[in-house]
């Protein structure tokens, strides 16, 4: 079984965010980068299936500038077999359809049985790249998987619906499935894994310049519609103020 996992490198949630002079994005030189957190679950699900079946390979696929090879190495250290890096040399692409076409161009001859992706990225949050790739490759698709079962040419997926509801769907493979956080407990790389990852292959492709269907023009700090009272005082005054709010303003008692 050949499994591709689409991974993305994103700015970490603890990172400083400073908007760049042209307002087009944040200053990347001051940012710290991490593996998109939901993608850790997608990698783990791929590794678990490979281990359960006892054969096959897990291939990590990532698009972005050269720095994204760091997250590919991280996944290789956890046990993935090899990597595919789709290199962007110019501006960072944010159009999901354009990214999906680049990924398809790089992986179409691999004939993957499964493509896993995290449910969405922490940076752009478009939540569609894995499904776009699946559709462009003529695969079946499912989203927000919270459990998977492999059965020969089929994958059974427990999908999360809204408000505490779930649904099982059975897909004929090849399939592209987006993975919900919490489906498993992602492993940490072992020291041996980290050493071994250095020898694993990362194949580099250039990204395609497909016609842009949508573009990010600028970023800005959200204007709050609410008047927020900020209570940033010592412990005793903060507690006194909260008690006063509960009693006189919200009238809890």
């Amino acid at each position, binding site marked *: 079984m050949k499994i591709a996992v689409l991974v993305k490198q994103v700015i970490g949630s603890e990172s400083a965010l400073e908007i760049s002079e042209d307002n087009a994005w944040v200053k990347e030189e001051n940012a710290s980068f991490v593996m998109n957190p939901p993608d850790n679950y997608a990698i783990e699900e791929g590794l678990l299936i490979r281990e359960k079946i006892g054969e096959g390979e897990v291939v990590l696929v990532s698009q972005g500038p050269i720095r994204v090879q760091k997250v590919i190495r991280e996944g290789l250290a956890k046990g993935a077999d090899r990597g595919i890096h789709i290199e962007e040399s110019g501006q960072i692409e944010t159009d*999901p359809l354009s990214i999906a076409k680049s990924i398809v161009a790089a992986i179409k001859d691999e004939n993957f049985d499964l493509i896993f992706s995290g449910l969405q990225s922490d940076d752009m*949050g478009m939540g569609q790249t894995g499904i776009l790739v699946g559709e462009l490759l003529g695969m079946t698709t499912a989203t927000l998987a919270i459990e998977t079962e492999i059965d020969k040419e089929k994958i059974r997926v427990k999908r999360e619906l809204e408000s*505490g*509801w779930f*649904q099982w769907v059975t897909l004929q493979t090849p399939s592209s499935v987006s993975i919900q956080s919490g489906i498993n407990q992602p492993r940490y790389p072992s020291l041996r894994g980290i050493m071994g990852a250095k020898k694993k292959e990362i194949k580099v492709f250039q990204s395609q310049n497909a016609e842009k269907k949508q573009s990010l023009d600028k970023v800005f700090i959200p204007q709050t519609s609410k008047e927020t009272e900020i209570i940033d005082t010592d412990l005793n005054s903060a507690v006194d103020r909260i008690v006063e709010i509960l009693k006189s303003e*919200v009238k809890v008692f």
Partner: protein
Amino acid sequence: MNILVIIEDSRGSMHRMSKEAIVAAQKIGGNITALVIGDNADAISEELSSIDIERTLVVKHDLVSSYNSDGYAEVVTQVIKSMNPSTIIIGHTYQTRDFMPRVSAKLDIPFIPDIVGLEQDYYIKQVLNSKLNASISSSADMKILSFQSACFSEEDMASGSSGSENIDVNPDSSLVRSSSEEPFQESAPEVDLESAELIVSVGRGIEKEENIPIAFDLASALGAEVSASRPVVDAGWMPSFRQVGSSGSTVSPKLYFSLGISGAIQHVVGMKGSKNILAINKDPDAPIFEIADYAVVGDVLEIVPKLIETLENP
């Protein structure tokens, strides 16, 4: 301008976010067509008949009698091709996320998801863990827009009268390569968060499972119910019926007292309708503070025990 609004069937009636999608279409302005698919289409078109739209199109076909990604992606694509709208509008629900990217790929048109606001020709979307907003634009002749929960209010829906007509589709049965079982709930909820007046809600800032009783102690001092954000449920510290957010309950209590919740979009969509939001968080830049009425910067583990002590010994 022709707008197509795709309506979601929520167990026999129109999904709350489909109503908000109609309001979005009414604000954008144009000839609005609603599309209803499946076995419950008649009941839902009845709901649509008293809304100010042009018409409702009804699709009834064995392959889409209930929701499935293969069938929906194909049928919606066929309807779009036949009516050629410039804008396709839908609520940003889990179902939308499941099939809409496929429509985007089939038609080679952009899908701009999870929009929180409109500004002239720009679509506003939250980025970077909701810490910043981004303006997205598209020069495509046809585009798909999905709107975040509560971006528009169904109370603003203009009423009117409209008729419905059936539309024929011809999906090839070989396209459906998946089968869906009946939706189900994991465990019966023990609390009714959606009608709770007061809620104390716990996030990752509680740090460890042993600290969870602090939230229950505060809740009992206030007479409140206890809820949680997704990471706390994922960690197994709280049962899933206590989860608030896109995959849990949507709540609107008089007071939402949030303890160490950062305020990711997935959580905020489930509680931003609360009348009063009091949030405690160590991080002064936590996104929860943007929607809070009272933003207490500090450590939950110091403030809450002291608060309980003060409430119990006035």
